[in-house]
């Protein structure tokens, strides 16, 4: 018998991870108008920073999340300031910026590899497991879901109630108008890159603590994260919440279906890819329409 309650909880865990990973991607994509493939390396970099704080320094999970958020956020901000902003000013198109981001990703990935090595590392912290009825959950997953929910609430409050949040939304929907209204677009974009890379780091830590950490940690999950960003509608935060849980659910139901059909669960990764392609064919704007204010 399939334990459906557990399948839904697992989907929530998968979805929470993808959500945290996708927010940064979708916001920077929405504002800077190009997909940043080096986002995968922000995830990896964050995982390594978090690992250092949590393990060799022994400070535990919460400090590692905060430190990794800040440090990786700064790296993201610098990457934009030093590479993408000058390129944009020189009139680089989407293709140029995208290729530059792939190159940046490669440089970061192999630098990480030569600094920390390619041998996988593991978080040593042991999380207790609980049985709640028929559902089994670990301390780490509770943290992950808690962070995803907190993030959603904070992002919502920032976007709706703060000046920078309003500026982000304005810049996203119409940069020229935003500029004309006296919004410092460059500053808004820099803030977005900082937040985006910082959140990628948080996703990286959770992924690493749940599995392992190595220079490909981010690359291992970048495909479903892209699928979330595109299904949710580029630049649309609320869309990505829904999309993250759709992809999480699809992957987990997919595993159940594949096993019932007697197929290899290696095809699991293909599920996110199929959703991605179908979205692009049928509804390229993703779920964004659902959240547009009339």
């Amino acid at each position, binding site marked *: *018998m*399939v*334990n459906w309650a*557990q*399948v839904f909880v*697992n989907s929530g*865990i*998968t979805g929470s991870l993808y959500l945290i990973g996708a927010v940064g991607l979708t916001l920077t994509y929405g504002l800077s108008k190009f997909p940043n493939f080096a986002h995968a390396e922000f995830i990896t970099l964050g995982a390594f920073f978090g690992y250092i704080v949590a393990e060799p320094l022994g400070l535990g999970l919460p400090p590692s999340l905060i430190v990794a958020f800040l440090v990786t956020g700064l790296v993201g901000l610098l990457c934009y300031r030093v590479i993408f902003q000058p390129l944009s000013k020189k009139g680089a198109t989407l293709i140029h910026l995208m290729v530059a981001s792939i190159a940046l990703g490669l440089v970061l990935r192999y630098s990480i590899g030569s600094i920390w090595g390619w041998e*996988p590392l*593991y978080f*040593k912290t*042991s*999380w207790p*497991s609980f*049985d709640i009825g028929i559902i*089994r959950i*670990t301390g780490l997953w509770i943290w992950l879901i808690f962070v995803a929910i907190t993030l959603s609430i904070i992002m919502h409050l920032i976007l709706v109630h703060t000046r920078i949040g309003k500026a982000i939304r304005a810049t996203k929907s119409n940069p020229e108008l935003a500029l004309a209204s006296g919004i410092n677009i460059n500053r808004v974009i820099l803030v977005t890159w900082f937040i985006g890379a910082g959140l990628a780091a948080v996703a990286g830590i959770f992924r690493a603590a*749940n*599995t*392992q950490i190595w220079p490909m940690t981010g690359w*291992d999950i970048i495909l479903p994260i892209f699928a979330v960003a595109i299904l949710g509608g580029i630049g649309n935060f609320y869309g990505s919440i829904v999309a993250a849980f759709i992809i999480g659910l699809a*992957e*987990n139901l997919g*595993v*159940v279906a594949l*096993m019932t059909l*007697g197929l*290899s*669960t*290696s095809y*699991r*990764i293909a599920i996110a890819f199929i959703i991605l392609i179908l979205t692009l064919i049928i509804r390229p704007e993703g779920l964004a329409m659902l959240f547009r204010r009339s």
Partner: protein
Amino acid sequence: MRKKLLLIMALLLMVPLLAWTPAKADTIKIGSLLTTTGDLGPMGNRMANAARLAIEEINAQGGLLGKNVEFILENDNCEPAKGLERIKKLIDINGVKVIVGAMISGSSFSGGPYASRKNVALISPSATAAKLSEQRWTKWFFRTCLRDDLQAKVLADIVLDKGFSRLATIVLDNTYGQGLEIGLVKILKAQGWKGKHVAAVRYDQKKKDYLTQLQQIKDSKPDVIFASTYADDGIIVFKQALDLGLDKIPWLGCDGNYGSGLFKEPKSAQFMEKAFLAGTRSAGGLTKAYDTFARAYKDKFGEPPEVYCDTTYDAVWVVAEAIKKAGKYDGKAIRDAMETIKLDGASGPISFNETCDRASGTFELWKVAKDPTAKTGYRNVRIKLVTIH
């Protein structure tokens, strides 16, 4: 005068050339195809060293048929197509009549038919795919390693012995993992097992999250779980299995999850210590011959031999004995002699059955125990040895 001097000098220069050519024709060539680059490169290079050690010993004992032995090593870079090309090169250009290899099953499949047509026998130290024995050319394909299905038989015996009736499997989605899973279920059915194979997971080594697959296994309520993993993916499987409370069900393992590599992560080690009823692995290193080999290897290369070094070393010695017995350097004669060879090798007693596979082998049943003196706090300990025919 100057001209004459030059002429003499030129003639003198040709002397070593003349002396060298007949010497070259006067060696016995043993070809070899291993994988010495890529992921399997480190393992292949160690195996090549084991072969070199054997060649050196053979030459120190006076070579074969009164001639020195020349070792010609080729690399397939883990690509079956390249393997065939290298085997053609060894046979057609170097003129070898017997080849130690291929290291991987893929190149054995691609190169086997060609070598057999040219009357050149292959002897693989490490290609374990059972299907290699079902080919038309199996009489030209020998192995000093043990087939995957022999290991599956040891595992099946445990399942039958303990009376388990609900088997779940979680295996790597590759020839190795699938081979063990299919072999295990097939042998169980053939032995009249009444149980059910309740869940079968074949996972992608690269997708490092197996929570939902493990949950499916848990929901299928197995009374025994068989896992075939490598080290880094195995760690995640076992760590997540612990998170899901799957340590209450007995697990069976195999050679892929043997070793301290699995204990790098404390949760994985803790899980294996609690849940593993037994694992299997080929029990090399039991004989005096192995100790002698291991010492010589370490003296020469500065590191202890690792997996499949002993079978490579033995494969070269089997070839040497076969050439001696054949009395001539001829492919057909060497093959025929090889079939009858009996040898006490580093990897144990060697003889070949009707499909030219190793006729018997000894496996070790192991489990994981706490060991405060080990770096990781855990180590593998032997339960017992099982010899299978």
